[in-house]
């Protein structure tokens, strides 16, 4: 089912640029927020609204690391592992997250709740070690804070068992 709101948003976005093709990134951001991740159908929709070949959309969706062509958990934990965070123990935190969630970086838990990704510099080195939980920065991490945070998220997920993609 195509969504008229999404079509409207993408069409409006295209008017901001000299050519509709420029709107492919903002359109993919909109589609991803709408569907949770970029399915083949979502990318086809973007291609249709912007009058682009489907491959032109696919090559953008797969070039940039913030676009997801596979499902992402309700909680996406993106741990920075670049130098400033590494110096302050990011590797240890990565092992802790992998252990507690029982997944490796790049994977999603079987219940679809958590995706763990090791990412490059988040541009927040003053609060290293830092990670992004969905859109929010969580800085000055240590083992204890991380454990508490995971527990809070688990409890929150248990209270709200629905696990569909975020609604727009």
């Amino acid at each position, binding site marked *: 089912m195509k969504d008229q709101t999404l079509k409207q948003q993408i069409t409006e976005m295209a008017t*901001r640029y*000299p*050519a509709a*093709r*420029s*709107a*492919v*990134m*903002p359109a*993919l*951001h909109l589609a991803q927020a709408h569907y949770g991740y970029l399915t083949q159908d979502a990318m086809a929709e973007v291609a249709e609204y912007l009058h*682009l070949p489907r491959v*032109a959309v696919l*090559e*953008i969706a797969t*070039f*940039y*690391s*913030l*676009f997801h062509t596979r499902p992402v958990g309700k909680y996406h934990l993106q741990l920075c*592992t*670049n*130098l*400033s965070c*590494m*110096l*302050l123990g990011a590797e240890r935190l990565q092992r802790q997250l992998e252990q507690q969630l029982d997944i490796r970086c790049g994977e999603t838990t079987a219940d679809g709740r958590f995706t763990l990704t090791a990412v*490059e*510099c*988040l*541009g*927040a*080195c*003053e*609060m*290293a070690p830092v990670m*992004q939980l969905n*859109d*929010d*920065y969580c800085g000055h991490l240590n083992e204890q804070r991380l454990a508490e945070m995971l527990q809070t998220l688990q409890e929150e997920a248990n209270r709200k068992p629905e696990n569909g993609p975020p609604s727009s």
Partner: protein
Amino acid sequence: MYEQVLLLEKRDSEYQDLAGYRSVGGYSALSSTLRDSTPEQLIDLVKEAKLRGRGGAGFPTGLKWSFVPKGSASAKWLLCNADEGEPGTFKDRIIMEQTPHLLLEGMILAAYAIGAAKAYIYIRGEYVTAIRRLEREIQACRQAGLLGKNILGSGFDLDIYLHRGAGAYICGEETALIESLEGNRGQPRFKPPFPAVSGFYKGPTVVNNVETLACVPPIVQRGADWFRSIGSEKCPGPKLYCLSGHVKRPGLYELPMGISLRELVEQHAGGTHSGKKIKAVIPGGISAALLPEPALDIAMDFDALSAAGTMLGSAGVIVMDESTCMVQVAHRIIEFFHHESCGKCTPCREGLAWVEQMLRRIKDGEAKSGELESMERIYGNIEGNTFCLLGDGAVMALRGVVKNFRHEFIERIQQGGRAA
């Protein structure tokens, strides 16, 4: 005592909105310029101030603006490079979050100087707070007649749009940024032609960094002489320094350009958090070659650091204490560049993959003797043979580690051999 002009009062939320910014004289630089100055006069003022680009290259901003052909019929574009991706750097994020109007006023002035009617802020996709705040404040500017048609009754029109990036370090390179903004994969273009002549959709285009643009309103307000009175003669002005790593007080510091690196790290940031000795400091984001502790008495400006074989870059200062393993540091740096290589040219795409594997073997104690020399031969062939500066940055960084801490690599190779 140095007076901050870019961060205003640090962490004070009052300046985030239009009313707050106006209460400290915000947009007076714009109104006086639109009333009293021609675009040429504004360009001359910025030239006279000797403002140099804060994104890393240090190119004179006024000169860059003056390259845009006057009277050309095709549309001109101003692009703000807010795709801050150099590891160790967070200054542009903090400007956009805390004083978004300083950037917006700087952009309106820059667009007036070059004759652009549309401008885009290419902002890192992760910077969600800054995106929301800028969206809100751009809207406030439209309502206040500071953006849109006939700005402040001057007859000058400008629209500013945000363009959210999606996680690609290479898009901080200006021609890759333009490619990305045209809806393509972010891969660099051949220069020349330079963007000022043929850039966004082949129109004359200026790409300026956030901090560079934020310097423009204070220059207009306080004058070129004031700007030149801060810092050194060739590199004047206020500068933002990002302090991170093994440092007691990490954070963003606004101080004069050209401050000594030792003073910055030891006095302002309080030295190491552990009390251990400093081993080395990266002065300008991880592309910049590190400086060992004895070399810290150096001015933080474009020319002094360049003469020392490193660079001011993005002024991302990363401090490492004596407990740091330099082989691990080298490996992490090259892993990053390998991951971010856009894949366009072979020396960078393949070369960095090989160097990364060799560093991993050295780190894991699996390297054979001679591996260090092979690695040096390979990265010597990357340097100068790549399409853009990403590969060169990777090599500069790695060379800096190997040159100063070669013995750690050799020890690791020898120990690894014995252990096996």
